[in-house]
């Protein structure tokens, strides 16, 4: 077997109890039910058990076939309830599948929660040993890595303080530090990076990347498409317990984003008034079909419209809005004062606007097309909305170095003025 993980028709079924809210069953209930069905059968031996309709089946995973090759950093994406956690739990052997089988090669370490099994009464030092053992390290291994762990966690001063007096940030750091020093062939990580301050998150991402560099296989689950894009090279997109897409991370993210977001990159329709009608609008990036843009990707906005009644007050343009619904950038045809009049001549037009996506931070933006008569009428303002998600490419992160994600991206147009090479 060359793959690190292979699953064949992996399925997991849960039974949902419809009558009792919690799904706990007590001895009395079970016995009462058993007695009940026994008497039912006495009365009517031919009738099938009535039990059946009390519970509902729920397939958390259905016929999942995945392959993970050595050295892959696989991001699992999907909405809440798509089966991501169930899949991780089955791969970590915590939960057993209802049908199908899995082959896993090598030592697996799974990090579904930071600091699993930390005991509040024990000191930091004691918890390092305990947690290390829980994650599968031997005593000798922990002793060998102890100093590294302490240094990484930045809690050196408090080693002999009970963990119950730690701040939650300290617990997280300590927990991750221990897990980071595991030496698995396969690391399974579930959204643990959502905690800790930005600096520590970067440290964690860097560590995970380093593991990838050393030929380790990493499986990573997160809702944050940004961190998935910067860590993973392969993706698995789950929805409703099924694998929808599997392959390079960018295509998976594409499929994922296309399915969940209300807005699209393209709009088609017919809105406007007696002065102007809009038919089409869309965002393009170098001709590639992508559902998102990397920071710095040249973006072309195209608009098709028809001016029915010429008036010199007509003005159209766009506004870019962030997730908090704040307008952060705009451009109007009036800004192009020399050509403005030709844009609003009677007739059909196709306009394009080049947007430098480097000036945006990572995030989901909306582009709204805005049109009106100067100082008198708003023709459209919310009818045409395009999504404009931007992620940081961070090629450098994927190669093992961590670069700062903040700030405006100025591009990569470096050039020599002169150069002497010996």
């Amino acid at each position: 077997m060359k793959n690190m993980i292979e699953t064949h028709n992996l399925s997991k079924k849960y039974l949902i109890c419809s009558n009792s809210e919690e799904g706990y069953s007590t001895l009395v209930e079970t016995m009462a039910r058993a007695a009940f069905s026994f008497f039912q059968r006495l009365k009517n031996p031919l009738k099938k058990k009535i039990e059946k309709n009390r519970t509902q089946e729920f397939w958390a995973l259905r016929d999942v076939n995945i392959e993970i090759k050595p050295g892959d950093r696989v991001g699992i994406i999907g909405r809440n309830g798509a089966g991501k956690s169930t899949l991780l739990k089955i791969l970590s052997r915590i939960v057993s599948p209802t049908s199908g089988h899995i082959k896993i090669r090598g030592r697996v370490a799974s990090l579904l929660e930071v600091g699993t099994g930390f005991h509040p009464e024990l000191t930091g030092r004691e918890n390092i040993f305990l947690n290390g053992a829980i994650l599968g390290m031997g005593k000798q291994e922990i002793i060998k890595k102890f100093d590294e762990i302490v240094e990484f966690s930045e809690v050196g001063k408090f080693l002999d303080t009970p963990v119950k007096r730690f701040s939650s940030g300290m617990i997280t750091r300590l927990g991750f530090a221990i897990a980071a020093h595991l030496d698995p062939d396969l690391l399974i990580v579930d959204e643990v990076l959502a905690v800790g301050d930005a600096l520590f998150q970067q440290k964690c991402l860097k560590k995970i990347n380093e593991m990838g560099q050393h030929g380790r296989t990493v499986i990573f689950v997160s809702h944050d498409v940004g961190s998935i894009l910067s860590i993973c090279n392969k993706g698995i997109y789950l929805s409703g317990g099924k694998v929808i897409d599997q392959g390079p991370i960018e295509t998976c993210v594409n499929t994922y984003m296309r399915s969940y977001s209300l807005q699209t990159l393209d709009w088609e329709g017919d809105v406007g008034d007696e002065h102007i009608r809009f038919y089409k609008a869309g965002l393009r990036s170098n001709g590639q079909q992508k559902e998102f843009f990397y920071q710095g990707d040249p973006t072309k906005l195209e608009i098709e419209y028809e001016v029915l009644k010429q008036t010199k007050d007509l003005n159209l343009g766009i506004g870019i809005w962030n997730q908090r619904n704040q307008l952060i950038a705009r451009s109007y045809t009036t800004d192009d004062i020399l050509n403005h009049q030709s844009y609003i001549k009677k007739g059909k037009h196709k306009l394009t606007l080049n947007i430098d996506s480097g000036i945006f931070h990572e995030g989901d933006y909306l582009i709204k097309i805005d049109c009106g008569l100067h100082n008198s009428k708003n023709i459209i303002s919310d009818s045409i909305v395009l999504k404009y998600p931007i992620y940081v490419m961070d090629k450098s992160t994927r190669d093992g170095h961590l670069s700062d994600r903040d700030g405006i991206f100025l591009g990569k147009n470096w050039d020599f003025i002169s150069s002497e090479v010996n």
Partner: protein
Amino acid sequence: MSDKLPIITIEAGHTQKGYLQNVYKSRELLYFLAWRDIIVRYKQAFFGIAWAIVRPLLNMLAFTLIFNRIAHLESENVNYALFVLAGMLPWQFFSGSVMDTSNSLLTNASLITKTYFPRIIIPLAQLGVHFLDFSIGFICLLILMPFMGAGFGLSLLALPLLIVLLLMLSSAVAFWLSSITVQYRDVRFIVPFMVQFGIFISPVGYSSNLIPEKWKWLYFLNPLVGIIDGFRFAFFGVATTDFVFSLVTSIFVTLGLFISGYFYFLKKERYFADRI
């Protein structure tokens, strides 16, 4: 290098192959879990680990007072305090470990839902904690014996076997109860009652010679009878009238419980994370 990596196959509906091997590999975790519970128990206690010695001793003192001074029960010509101590030792271990192990999977629920290791380690580690208490009490008893007029005989050689039997019985009950508790929380309420009742149907404060002949077969079905009588035999060299019968019954009952408990636990283990 990657060609040498071990391959694990997980198949739906099957217990993984090499379970015992896995348990052996995780022995350090077993040690750490037991160590955690021992340390935690005596954290923030002024006398600290000294309680581990004082606790069993206080228990024995209380027992001796109650049964000897108040109940005046017969003790087969052995110093009554020693007689009770020898019975108390296995009983304390059994009752204490049953109380704790039956709950052990629930108290470690976070481990079960977040990490993988052979789950059987959890009740076993809990057993280890109580075995420490047992060992301390055991040593105390050995030290006390010469002072209270009991000599050491060859029968002491039977002790290792009896301790193994006791360990097997306790783990058997632990396997059964802990795995049932995951699904039926009722066990948590039944166990304390069982333990309180158990002391009366086991020869802890009295000799099993007191049991009427016609009820003996029923009485001996309690595997603790053979074990406790065995401990008294080992320490003092005195055997009850039907000692061999009670011991053999006990061995069979224990083996039956142990094997069935082990497989029941394995069968249920797969669903622990889903049900807990």
